[in-house]
């Protein structure tokens, strides 16, 4: 864990209620599947946001405005600083992916799939991506995934873009392993539909985000795990719904 003062480079709307924020600062220790915990002026607890992309000195986050904290974030301007705890969580294990991993992201669960796709690519594995949204106006990053060379499917619940339905309606594919992040009902549906092992990224309300308060613990087949420290990524075999 590091405590880094990032400087906002850009903060732009990329879809309905959805913003992409690029920050400059030290990203040492950050890995795909991890998250950062952001201190926002006027809010007591930090806000956990997944790592969407990073270079040695830039960090990209994508967040959906759902409450006062994320709304305040959406109003922040380039040049402003943001206090973050970085390097939080276990991250994805790419050693188990096989050569044809499937990435399944839903809404605000899409961002961590992007940096994961890049890491897999660097390891010589080309992944297929399924990106699920409610409607066309909420969709984002299809072009970015395609630019990485990923075979990319977009689903919308209302059918206004891509495949009508949920991510599971696009899952009849040939894959060696999968990674998924999104709302819990989606994770459950993916769990039931999937035919291989895989890794799931979970969310929980957090007090600290670095393992100290036991605020975020869940039960797994291998004992109690803190989503912030022993997660947020859990493997299919250990999940207890």
């Amino acid at each position, binding site marked *: *864990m590091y*405590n880094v003062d990032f400087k906002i480079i850009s903060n732009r709307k990329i879809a309905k209620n959805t913003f992409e924020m690029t920050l400059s600062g030290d990203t040492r220790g950050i890995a795909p599947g991890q998250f950062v915990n952001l*201190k926002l002026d006027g*809010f*007591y*607890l*930090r806000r956990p946001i997944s790592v969407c992309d990073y270079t040695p000195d830039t960090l990209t986050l994508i967040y959906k405005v759902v409450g006062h904290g994320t709304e305040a974030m959406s109003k922040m301007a380039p040049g402003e600083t943001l206090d973050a*705890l970085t390097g939080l969580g276990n991250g994805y294990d790419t050693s188990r992916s096989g050569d044809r991993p499937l990435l399944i992201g839903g809404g605000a669960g899409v961002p961590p799939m992007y940096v994961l796709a890049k890491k897999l690519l660097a390891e010589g594995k080309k992944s297929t991506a399924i990106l699920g949204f409610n409607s066309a106006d909420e969709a984002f990053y299809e072009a970015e995934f395609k630019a990485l060379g990923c075979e990319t499917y977009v689903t919308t619940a209302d059918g206004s873009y891509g495949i009508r339905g949920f991510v599971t309606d696009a899952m009849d594919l040939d894959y060696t392993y999968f990674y998924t992040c999104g709302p819990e009902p989606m994770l459950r549906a993916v769990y039931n539909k999937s035919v291989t092992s895989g890794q799931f990224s979970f969310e*929980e*309300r*957090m*007090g*600290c985000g*670095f*393992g*100290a*308060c*036991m*605020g*975020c*613990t*869940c*039960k797994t087949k291998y004992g*109690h795990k803190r989503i912030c*420290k022993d997660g947020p990524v859990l493997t299919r075999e250990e999940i207890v719904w």
Partner: protein
Amino acid sequence: MTNTQVTLSGLTLSNPVIPASGTFGYGYEFAEIYDINCLGSFSFKGTTREPRFGNEPPRIAETASGMLNAVGLQNPGIDKVISEELPKLRKVFRKPVVANISGFSIDEYAECCERIDKEEGVGLIEVNISCPNVHCGGMSFGTSPESAAEVTRAVKAVTSKPVYMKLSPNVTDIAAIAKACEDAGADGVSLINTLMGMRIDLRHRAPVLRNVTGGLSGPAVFPVALRMVWQVYEAVRIPIIGMGGVACAEDVIEMMLAGATAVEVGAANLVDPFASKKIVEELPRVMERLHIENLTDIIGGAHHG
């Protein structure tokens, strides 16, 4: 030169700053980012006889200037704490630690305290009779002077280390309970634990916390905690460990002026993992500015007559 030393029932601390139980785990997460030996001591996560998962999530909610928690005493149980956590903790923390113990019966309190009392690294036992997040135990022992005294007597009978009873603010007269603990032989009191509260999710029209209620802590509770430390100081002669919303060195001084001998820092560690270290480092500067040479001189210093 400023002197930050304080003494709790014969246990001398290099400074009065003690991370509070439940907000510092067993120290490891913090030891990764700074040398925690700069702290006066720290109070480890509340320990019970059996291992506990605690309450179902969500267990955390945000509030104005604070937070609610309904963790419900998640811990690996006394056996594992003694066999695994304490040896591991000794590697990162060389000073005597505060052992925070909880229970669901008088017997359980006595058994856990008796066992932890024998552990070399333990400097002081903090008996939590004030957890608002468990049912049939915890706080129910801390809400009447009689049961608080009963736990105190049971624990004192089987221990040799200083015993500090951790008191609940969810009572009509905290001073009466502190007095009952003192009369029953407590070496000191620790206060306050969290204040019961709740939040409702507007979209789901349901409580945010699965446990419905949780314990409020953070700067929001500081004035309440300070007032209670003040009242207890007027009622007892044993030392007080003050806590509730402490976030900076000035808050430490304020707590001590109200009557605390040492101060615990809780929620602040969660939002800023360096908070306790920063307070330790700030303290001498703030003392100098306020012309305080010996920190012990100011304990209860705001009480006149």
